[in-house]
Structures are given as structure tokens and as C-alpha cells.
């Protein structure tokens, strides 16, 4: 399966990474090299094998649905590039 420039553009968009138009061909080439390498997986007979979720057979633990933490607004916002009036600030989302 070969990735063309259009697919590379689509993947970059899905990943929310801006890629300049003139870099898309090279990117598609890199994807093809890596995906070519993983093509070997098609040689393996995986019939009847379940996809592994966790290396240790386990059920995820549950806890009581109660508040365990909180009241740390200043700490939560302390690393934000733009925080105002106790909120994360972002560009306009709704037109």
C-alpha cells in the first residue's frame, strides 16, 4: 500500500500538525519507507489470535466515585501559555 501526497496531507491534518505544501512529497516518502518495513507483519498467520490489550492479564481497578482531589485552580493554570480570570484562554472557537 503506497501513500501519496494527498494521503500525507490528510494524515497531517488528522494529527493537527501543519506541514508545508512543499514538504508533503518527502513526508509521503518517509511514511512509505516505514510502512514498507511493517508490511512484513502480513507474513504472520494470526488466525484465531486475539489482539493483545495488556501484557499482564488484569481487570482495571475501580474506586469509589468520590472527590479525592481538587481546589487547586492556581496550580492547574500555573503552566498555561495564556490563563485569564481563572480559565485557560484560547482563540475564538465558535464563529
Amino acid at each position, binding site marked *: 500500500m503506497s501513500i501519496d501526497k494527498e494521503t500525507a496531507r490528510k494524515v497531517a491534518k488528522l494529527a493537527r500538525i501543519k506541514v508545508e505544501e512543499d514538504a508533503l512529497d518527502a513526508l509521503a516518502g518517509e511514511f512509505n519507507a516505514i510502512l514498507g518495513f511493517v508490511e512484513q507483519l502480513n507474513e504472520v498467520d494470526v488466525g484465531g489470535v486475539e489482539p493483545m490489550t495488556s501484557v499482564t492479564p488484569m481487570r482495571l481497578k475501580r*474506586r469509589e466515585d468520590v472527590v479525592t482531589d481538587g481546589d487547586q485552580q492556581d496550580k492547574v493554570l500555573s*503552566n498555561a501559555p495564556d490563563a485569564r480570570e481563572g480559565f485557560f484562554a484560547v482563540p475564538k472557537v465558535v464563529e
Partner: protein
Amino acid sequence: MSDLNTLTIAEARDKLRAGEITSVELTEACLAATEAASTLNAVVHHTPDLAREQAKAADARIAAGDAPAMCGIPLGIKDLFCTKGVASQAASAILNGFKPEYESTVTSQLFDAGAVMIGKLNMDEFAMGSSNETSTYGNVINPWRRGNDATDLTPGGSSGGSASAVAADLCLAATGTDTGGSIRQPAAFVGITGLKPTYGRCSRWGIVAFASSLDQAGPMTKSVRDAAIMLQAMAGHDPKDSTSAEFPLPDFEAAITGDIRGKTIGIPKEYRMDGMPDEIEALWAQGREMLADAGAKLVDISLPHTKYALPAYYVIAPAEASSNLARYDGVRYGHRAKLSQGDGITAMYEKTRAEGFGDEVKRRVMIGTYVLSAGFYDAYYNRARRVRALIKKDFEDVFEQGVDAILTPATPSAAFPLGQEFDDPVQMYLNDVFTVTVNLAGLPGIAVPTGVDGQGLPLGLQLIGKPWEEGDLLNIAHSLEDRAGFVAKPPKWW
């Protein structure tokens, strides 16, 4: 006393307890060594004030007779660990300026045990790399050179700063993390011991996530005994990591008895790769002889799906990374791109991530996005997870046949020059060919320095253990270390 920074943890612990040295003296020796080693670029955020404060507190605890084994021991901490109030960037520009308000569980346990932090250590960006060339802080340089040849060599990666710092005696030991070989490969490249514990042995809470089903923290140390001592302080159940195991911790150091008579060591035929250098082949043969000499029984085994481990890894790890790294959006922490008039939130995400991530990280995030996208999920991601199940079963089958541990080379070569493999991602990925199976199967693995190549560079062997049997694994590794008698140190040129 001079050269305190060259001590092992075990030696320093005994001298501290005997009152022969203080943690303040030990810490000053490491800080001085670190100051003088800026060329190596191993330490990227220096914390001398914190270190001196922790050392004083450790000395007070030791004087009061309350001294756990790690008390007063100066460590380097990989930049992947969140450390409260100290820059923690995973070597990425996208986390520029990030100072966590919390402490990772592993570093918190180490500090509770009295350990001292001299600084944060360089690494590949988000732990993605095998040569420490993808860091926003620049390359780390291996303290080892090829004889008189001054070519800069890679310390390996992703824990390259940890490897370089420990090999150059900037600290007594360091934390590392290992997703596909990131503790064991760099340890082998610089002639130190690196242990990746069983998945779930150490809490992942507060460690910047790369591939959550594979990531595991572990110690990088100057000896096998030190790895046991340090693992003891790092490991244990943590309610904040739902995958951390609730098993009680054995005494890892006590497991090192020096007696491995009757142990069965498997030699997997699939690890004999085409084009493997003769020196690696010879080293592996010597390792077999050493373990046989110690009384172990060697058996040939087969792990038939070995060949498919790297391709499976390069689907699963990027898939998990694309999901984990979605959080870097310029909203809550780190870098946000300067926006143009009219840019909306999507433009903010796209510009921020384009500026903040390096090329290898972008490549893996996008590959991960692709293999998880509609129409390809089954063909790539689910197939890789099925192959992963088969790889794990290979190991279960040989352990069921009575194998206690498996001996393999740690790396396909000695340390190589910086820049040599950087332009070919797939060639770079092959560095992890012997280590990546262990992450896919969740097993403990340890790299032990066992020899040098023709140019005087260190080479290591890997031992792979049964799940939760780090004690047994450390004991076998200790026998290998003991017989290999590796004592070489890089001549100081930096």
C-alpha cells in the same frame, strides 16, 4: 577523599553508614564533576541548590540512624520524569518552560528514601530515538572514544544523558525509561548496567507518556548490585497507576546470592542475525561460557516470532504515541505558537505542534495517526497487536519448558558516530532489534557490560527474565558481571 563521584551506590551506602564520608561531600564531588563535563551535554537542567539541601537532610537522617540504602546518594533524573518545580520537558520544545506542580511517583519514592538529585538528564525527544540526536537540547556525547580517534560517538538512546552521566561519573546512578530498549541499548553503549523491570513493577505516574503499554522506568547503574538497590526504592504499587502491580516487593539485593547452579539459560537461535559483527558473536559465546562456568545449564531455544517484533513495535508504539501526544495542544502547558490575525483554534493546534515537535516525533505521531485511522486500523494496528500476542507466547512457551532466563546480545553493534544513522529512520530502528521483544512481552531485561570491541568500546549482553522475577534475573546477571570482570572506564578527555 577524592573521586567520591566514582563510587558505586553500594560502596557509598556503606561509607555513609560507617561515617567515613558525608552525603554533602559526595554531592559536591558529583556537582564538580558535572560542572566540568558540559561538553558531554548530559545534564540539561542543573539543580545544585536542591542537591545541597537534600544532601544535608540525608546526612541528618544518616546521623540519626534512619538511613535507607539510597539515603544521600546523588542521582541524575531523566528529563522524562516530572519533578516538582524543576523543568521537565521530555527534551521537547513543546514543553518549553514547563515546571510541574507535582512529583512523579518514582522520583518521589527515591527522594523519600533520601536520594539526592543533581539535575535533569538529556534524552531523545519524548524518548523517541536510539542515538540521543532528537533532543531539543542537542546531542549527548558518549564519554567513550575509539582509542585516540576524537570522533564523537552516540551514547545511545533514548536514555542517552543517563548513560553518559553514569559512565562519566557525574552521578552514582540515574533513572531511565525503556519503551523499546531505551535503558538497555544506551547502557550497553557506555559500559554500565541497565535494568528494564517487568511492566507494572514501577509506577508510570508522572512520567511523560510515550507508549503506555510498553513504557517502564528502571535504574541505570555502575553495577548489578546497584541496580537491585535502586530498583527497590523505585518499584512498588501505586494507586495512581492502574497498571502498577500490587505484588509485594521481594528484597532484590538479597536475591543476589552468587549461586546460579542448576539455573537453565536459554539461547535463542533467532537472535543470531545475518551480518552481525563477529565481535558480538564472540561476546555472546563468551557469555555462554561464563554462565556455564558459574554452574548454569545452557539450552538452545526458539522464539519463532522474533523477526516480527520490530515491525509490530513500529505500529503499536507510534499508535499509542499519537494518542498520548494529542495532549500537547498549546492550551494547558508549554509552547503556544504566535498566531496571525484570524487564526482559529485549529490553526493554533497545527502551528503549535508543527513548531514544538521535532521531525522524528512528528513522523511517529503521523504514522500512529495513519495506522489508527478508519480503514487501516484492522490491517495495521489490530494485526500488530495479534503478532504481539504471539511474541509473548513464544516467551511463555520457553519459560514453561523450564528456562529461567535468556541470554542474548544487547545491541547489534558498539556505539556509532553521531550522525551516522540519523537520516534513515528504519536503519535507526534496527538498534532495538534485541531489546524490543522484551517490551512487547512485558518482561524484565537487563544489559550487563561484558567486554570491549577491537577499538576499545564497551559491549554488553542482555539477560531476559520471567515476569516478576527481577531478583532471579539480577542474581544471574551478577554471576555474568562477576565472571566478565568488566572494569574499563573511559579515559577522561572532556
